[in-house]
């Protein structure tokens, strides 16, 4: 399995009480597979995505990426893995305001010390794949919502990640644009053989995935 979560529990301290956000979730995504993670608000979908993206350490449970248990890795190693193995598409595109579309994707290679001619070629290739070959030098303010999400998708795929995580990537788009971006995401994930975990509220988005996992249980309080 490219991504495996076993018994993941996330608890946060809220005053004198502990709030259980995610309670013992098991989940596995194989290479080339797309799993839709659905559920009501507060069911812990985004928190689980943060755990899978190595942005948050679980209170209990194990995280395995590409067959390696990464749960107890030090921060530096987790940072390295985030850069090279995991791509994330956020709910809002989260683009850097001063960078052009091309630079938004290039910066991933730069922070990982791999910005060379090959990488620059891949940037153009990715942006062309997502239909932005004419918008390479446009800044976020000059791009539409759909175009920004396309840039974010290209950025997430830049380092050829083993795992692609998408946190409601079409939530801020109108239905037509949302369908377009979602189709593109699934197509690209399939094309690169990436294990994709897609958090979504949208039934249509989930229908395009290979499997759907539904988180029902809302956060519970432990005194």
């Amino acid at each position: 399995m490219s991504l495996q979560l076993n018994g993941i529990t996330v608890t946060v301290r809220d005053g004198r009480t502990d709030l259980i956000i995610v309670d013992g979730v098991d989940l596995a995504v194989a290479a080339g597979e797309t799993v839709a993670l659905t559920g009501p608000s507060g069911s812990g979908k985004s928190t689980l995505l943060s755990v899978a993206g190595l942005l948050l350490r679980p209170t209990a449970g194990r995280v395995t990426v590409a067959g390696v248990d990464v749960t107890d890795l030090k921060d530096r190693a987790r940072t390295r893995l985030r850069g090279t193995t995991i791509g994330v598409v956020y709910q809002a595109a989260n683009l850097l305001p001063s960078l052009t579309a091309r630079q938004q994707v290039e910066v991933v290679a730069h922070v990982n010390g791999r910005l060379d001619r090959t990488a620059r070629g891949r940037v153009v290739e990715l942006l062309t794949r997502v239909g932005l070959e004419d918008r390479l030098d446009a800044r976020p303010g000059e791009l539409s919502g759909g175009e920004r999400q396309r840039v974010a998708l290209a950025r997430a795929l830049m380092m050829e990640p083993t795992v692609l995580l998408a946190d409601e990537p079409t939530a801020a788009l109108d239905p037509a644009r949302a369908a377009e971006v979602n189709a593109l995401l699934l197509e690209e994930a399939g094309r690169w053989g990436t294990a994709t975990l897609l958090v979504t509220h949208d039934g249509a988005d989930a229908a395009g995935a290979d499997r759907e996992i539904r988180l029902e249980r809302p956060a519970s309080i432990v005194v």
Partner: protein
Amino acid sequence: MYVALRDLRAARGRFALVGLVIALVAFMTTLLTGLAAGLVDDGISGLRQLPLTQLAMEPSSGGTFSRSVLTEENLAPWRAVDGVEASPIGVSFANAKDPRGKTVSIALLGVDEGSFLATRPEARDALAGPPGLVLSHELKEEGIEVGDELVVAGSDIRLPVLGFTYAGSYGHVDIAFTQLTTWQQVFYGDSARGRFSAVALRNEGGEEVPAATVARVDRAAGTETLTKTEAYAGSPGYSGETQTMSLIRGFLLVISALVVGAFFTVWTVQRTRQIALLKAIGASTSYVVRDALGQMAVVLVAATATGAALAWLLGLAISGTDVPFRLELMPVLGAVSLLFTLGLAGCLAAVRRITRVDPAGALRQVD
């Protein structure tokens, strides 16, 4: 500095604004450095250029010549020391009237005939002759010429101008050398009884007289020996001026550090989610810190260099005027480097904030 340089271009208005403030501080710091050096020059350049290393003075005079009165009894033990050159010197202030009736202020330095203090042959020759004055070059610009007779106010002694020597001043007044006996006549009249202000000292090799010798001879001679630098404090207004200038420069540097620190802290707060995103896509903390520090350094270097360069140009324009201003590369570089270093120190709060940004913050919107 992939993101930092692009941020600089994208937010050039904001960076130009803080750059302007830093440039103004650098401008004022450089200007004050030049003014401080000019004032110091005005205060002690005449003393600084004398080829002595120490001055033996009356104890507790604190380098103030008017408070120090020595006689032959104080001089003799110094003259008896092998390898030490000791020469009496009289220092006082006077007003003198030139033939055109114009009054000039002079710091009158009485020097013994053949003293090591008169290094130039023409000065030696002049001082070996009949009573007269060897003036600082600055006084030439007052229209005084060789052969003019100056009347020293108070004593009404008429002294011909024998020549001119290096430009120098003491206590913000141009210096004038004369024979020690003439100085005594001007200052004490007929009751001089061989009195003078201090004993100028140096080793025969030109180095400082060793501390052990100084301590021993001071006891025997009843003197207190100061280094040349220590004696600067005795120049009228010297300590007050240098301390005031240092205080103003200190305030400017602190203000600059605070402005720079505040700007970059606010800038960092605004960029928190961007930094989180960079960390989320694999940027290490050292990467984002290097990026931010590089950005701060670019702003600081560009602004301080611009401010200092403008002040340097202004300094060149005013250095020929009556404003005491002297530009020297090293003090200016020192002041600018200090400004840069304190500016970076001011950024530490911002850097600290950067190291604490949680990459999970990338899950929130940045654009």
